[in-house]
């Protein structure tokens, strides 16, 4: 590498200082926006996949006319007989709406849970097991909501028969997996049944644990054969449902950013497609003093690479701070908008090299191309014509 070519390229950046600064900030902003979406998306997907590790392989639901019904607990005995099923556990859960704030909370019955779909639930079960008979343990988002509505020690629940049931708030569980636990209320199975008006021998669904993942599909196909009203939802389907939700969110963002990117590219193309007369003159002088087309293209490559890679690194650093230090204010609310409560998401860093590569390819090469092509076009022109 010719050191002086590099030095000259750096000096040349100052020839069109304003234009280069403008492009530097435009490109940094674009990289910042795209990187922030990618980082949030990556972090959420990781959380989904991580949480899914402890999910049951199949959830069996009862559906009649596409409506969910409570499932008879005796179904467990039929399901456990299917070859490959290790355990079958009835679960009681549902959504409870607080009219005051028009928010839904996920109510989960905790006793009888000898599995967990988050480690936090297992910890809570150990900590509050006995006290749950008369109370509830709430996620941090629920706690904040209740405090706003002056429920600090207990909470009144409206039962289907119109009566009110008072349950003490016996604890709060805090989780980094806020995405899943923020809007959760844990209570005993008896209280949960009362709250949902569920008969004693019934559950919301049945979780099946299957040690061999290769058998999941064939087991899922056998379930409707036991009872045509039973429907099997596999872990893969659940994950893809979450992922499609994030795809939708990030897709929405990407459409916005594609518009922003398109605008940026149009501005840059417009500014570069025809070099200014000063820039054309610069290229012509270089040729007149003996630079070859190749030398000029190399110099322009270095010049534009400095601008583009500098903007790329600035954009990346800003988005790392924005997402992983500041918690992505505004953007995180849009991503978590469909949850009953908007949890205070804590994004954990799980970005891989390919994500950086994707962002790099989205921004830097286009700019390099947009600089080099017009410079090359100017360099092959008749120097005499330009200098006149």
């Amino acid at each position, binding site marked *: 590498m010719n050191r*002086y070519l590099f030095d*000259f390229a750096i*000096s040349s950046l100052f020839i069109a200082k304003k234009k280069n600064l403008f492009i530097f900030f435009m490109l940094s902003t674009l990289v910042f926006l795209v990187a922030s979406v990618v980082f949030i998306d990556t972090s959420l997907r990781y959380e989904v996949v991580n949480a899914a590790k402890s999910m049951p392989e199949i959830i069996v639901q009862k559906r009649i006319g596409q409506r969910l019904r409570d499932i008879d607990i005796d179904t467990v005995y039929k399901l456990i007989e299917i070859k490959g099923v290790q355990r079958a556990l009835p679960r009681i859960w549902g959504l409870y709406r607080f009219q005051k704030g028009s928010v839904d909370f996920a109510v989960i019955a905790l006793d009888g849970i000898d599995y967990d779909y988050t480690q936090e639930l297992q910890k809570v079960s150990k900590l509050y097991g006995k006290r749950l008979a008369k109370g509830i343990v709430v996620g941090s988002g629920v706690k904040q909501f209740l405090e706003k509505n002056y429920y600090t020690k207990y909470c009144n629940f409206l039962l289907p028969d119109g009566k009110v049931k008072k349950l003490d708030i016996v604890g709060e569980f805090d989780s980094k997996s806020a995405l899943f636990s923020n809007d959760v209320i844990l209570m005993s199975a008896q209280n949960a049944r009362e709250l949902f008006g569920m008969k004693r021998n019934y559950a919301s669904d049945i979780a099946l644990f299957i040690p061999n993942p290769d058998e999941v599909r064939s087991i899922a196909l056998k379930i409707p054969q036991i009872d045509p009203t039973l429907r099997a939802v596999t872990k893969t389907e659940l994950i893809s449902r979450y992922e499609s939700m994030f795809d939708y969110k990030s897709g929405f963002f990407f459409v916005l950013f594609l518009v922003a990117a398109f605008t940026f590219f149009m501005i840059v193309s417009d500014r570069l497609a025809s070099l200014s007369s000063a820039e054309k003159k*610069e290229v012509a002088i270089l040729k*007149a*003093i003996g630079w070859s087309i190749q*030398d000029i293209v190399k110099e322009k490559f270095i010049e534009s690479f400095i601008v583009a890679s500098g903007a790329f690194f600035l954009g990346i650093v800003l988005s790392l701070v924005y997402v992983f230090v500041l918690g992505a204010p505004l953007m995180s609310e849009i991503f978590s908008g469909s949850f009953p409560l908007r949890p205070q998401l804590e994004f954990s860093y799980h970005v891989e090299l390919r994500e950086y590569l994707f962002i790099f390819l989205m921004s830097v090469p286009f700019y390099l191309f947009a600089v080099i092509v017009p410079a090359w076009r100017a360099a092959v022109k008749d*120097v005499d014509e330009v*200098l006149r």
Partner: protein
Amino acid sequence: MIEFFDVTKTFFTPKGEINALSEVSFSVAKGELAVLKGRSGSGKSTILSLIASLSKPTKGKILVDNEEIVKMSDDFASAFRLRNIGFIFQRYNLFEHLSVYENLLAPLVPLGLDRNEVQRRIEKVLEEFHIESKKDLPAKSLSGGEQQRVAIARALINDPKIILADEPTANLDATLANEFITILQRLKNDKKTVVVATHDPLFFDLDFVDRVYEVNGGAVC
């Protein structure tokens, strides 16, 4: 040695064709100082551009040091220009926002010289043209005379065999013009081939000028 054989240069513009040169033939021997005199628009600058291969003739043959530069590829022409030709432009054509040092560095960049050689060449011309103290200043902050000295220093930094000067005194006062004449004499003494395009009478009676060609309406006589 510079030789023109029936060279025609036509510019094609939206308003029509302009014949800048019509079947021009002339020569300048090695080590000679030739003056192309004529009014503005007579075709003098076009001749210099053709010698430096900054432009291609429409017809005819041009030999520079026995090389037919018209037939050279663009890259060869650039390499030829880099090593053999120093061009002093009428409006200096410096990089105004760059320092004097960076302007002088520009012709050295493609050569890929080592650090010591680069420094040696730059220091030599800075001293020769008395611009050491201006080394770090941007070219645009210099006076007209200083800018011209930088332009001459840049043209000579690669020690070219041929020096082309386009209206070198057009923007200078009498003192600075005389200073340029001194530089020209020194180049002549150094056995450089020099072609000056000018309409300044100052050049026509100089005793060290070997040839004066009159350029008029695209013809040389």
